[in-house]
């Protein structure tokens, strides 16, 4: 193996691509991390157990990966989808039947979304079981809970967009509960006393109407494609920043600095 590699490294083609060789030293390994805008999210050195899948289950990382996959496939879907009641369903049909790789992109988006909810649940479960929310990581747990809520909301708003029976009724069931919000819903305790009606309570604001209809589709679309991903990205930035500042992945001796 080494012989072949050495031979290869002598060839003109190789030399024209890689201008000098890479010496496997600790200095070079560190430079790989700090010189790369993406990798420098990481520290240069970490404790061995933090790379151990038996410890973290890799669930936070997989959640982030799925979020990236969802962003890319989601942008592609946006090329084919118009968030208006008269087009939305037809666009989905077109995507599933006539667009090259359309079904693959849509399936990847849907299954990655389901998978992300599962991995974020398991990530929280792992963080609890290793007690990693304890000092100094209390606040990062709180950021995490917000990310969990945002993940669920992203998934829920996306559920409506195909504009089929499954979509509108699942969202109808989900948003019906808002009628009963205490004080702010027209069927909630003290709602009527405060002047809440079906056409001015929180549910009305959420749906843009008295039932799930075209304005709801537009609201959920904007929330799903712009507002929620933006907020989620901001909180993820804070989440990752705090992991570093809190001393890296937790560990029995890892409560000091990285």
């Amino acid at each position: 193996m080494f012989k072949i590699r050495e031979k290869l490294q002598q060839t003109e083609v190789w030399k024209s691509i890689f201008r000098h060789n890479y010496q496997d030293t600790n200095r070079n390994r560190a430079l790989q991390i700090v010189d790369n805008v993406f990798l420098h999210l990481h520290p240069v050195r970490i404790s061995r157990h933090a790379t151990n899948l038996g410890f973290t289950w890799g669930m936070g990382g997989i959640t982030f990966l799925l979020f990236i996959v969802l962003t890319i496939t989601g942008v592609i879907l946006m090329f084919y989808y118009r968030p208006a009641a008269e087009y939305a369903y037809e666009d989905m049909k077109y995507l599933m039947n006539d667009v090259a790789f359309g079904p693959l992109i849509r399936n990847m988006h849907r299954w990655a979304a389901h998978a992300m909810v599962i991995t974020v649940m398991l990530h929280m479960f792992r963080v609890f079981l290793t007690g990693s929310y304890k000092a100094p990581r209390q606040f990062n747990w709180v950021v995490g809970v917000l990310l969990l809520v945002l993940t669920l909301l992203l998934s829920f708003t996306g559920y409506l967009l195909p504009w089929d029976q499954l979509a509108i009724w699942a969202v109808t069931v989900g948003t019906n509960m808002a009628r009963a919000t205490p004080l702010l819903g027209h069927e909630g305790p003290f709602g009527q006393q405060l002047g809440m009606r079906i056409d001015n309570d929180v549910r009305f604001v959420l749906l843009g109407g008295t039932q799930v209809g075209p304005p709801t589709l537009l609201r959920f679309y904007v929330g799903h494609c712009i507002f929620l991903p933006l907020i989620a990205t901001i909180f993820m930035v804070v989440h990752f920043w705090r992991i570093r500042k809190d001393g890296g992945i937790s560990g029995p001796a890892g409560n000091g600095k990285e």
Partner: protein
Amino acid sequence: MRNLWVLISKPDNIPIVGLLFLVILYTWYSLSKALKNDRQGFLDESTLSEKIQVWPNLVRVEFLGTLFVMVVLVFWSFLIDAPLEEPANPTLTPNPSKAPWYFLGLQEMLVYFDPWIAGVVLPTFIILGLMAIPYIDINEKGNGYYTFKERSWSILIFCFGFIVLWVSLIVLGTFWRGPGWYFFFPWEPWDTHRVVALTNIDLSEFFGVHTRSADYSLNPAAFIFGAVLVLGYYSLIPLYWILKKDKSGLLKKLGPIRYNVTAFLFLTMMSLPIKMVLRIGFNIKYVWVTPWFNI
């Protein structure tokens, strides 16, 4: 049996089968790691605490993990199509209409509580309660490794909330709930015309006190009965404090604010299983009926 297969192989239900499998696997795996750590007197994690270079050690794991996840996802997406049903029709309600699977726990709670509790108040407390965990758990041990012995209570309470009240209610809502939100065995065919004559009663009526008089006005005795029970339930919090304050080191360490928050969240969480037992076991609808809201 055909119905079981129909349910499991529905494209949107496959992730739930996966979730159930993973939760069982990880619960077993992490508890066995925890018990091993407790038993052997040293921590497995401590044997792995030397510092290593991120490049290539972590980057390699991330790369292989990414590859694995992408292969699974692409295969999954080639094999199974995302569902696309009939176009939206606001006049045609499917039976049952189910919320997306991660909200089925909330939909199940609607059986036991009025929507303002099940749909608004409890979810709010779930989110706030999760956020409060790091601040109310003052046990410093068990930070950054698997253990059961050193924090058994917090693990038991969290697992009860996560596994019993979330994951298993998702599974219940997906596989056991059919038309009319009635209970069906997963292998039982769904009978869309099933009507169960339910004679739900209020808790006071269980003891012979009628909630309403013949003219439908509220019976003050029933109102007071419910008030005593509900307020009595929450007054366990100060009562326990007064009784145990001087004897219990834990209460002293918690202090009054943390104690009250913890106890309130705990009792609120336990109100769900209590209401489930009352409802399923005894057909009890409300514990407390008032002119403004019912609990």
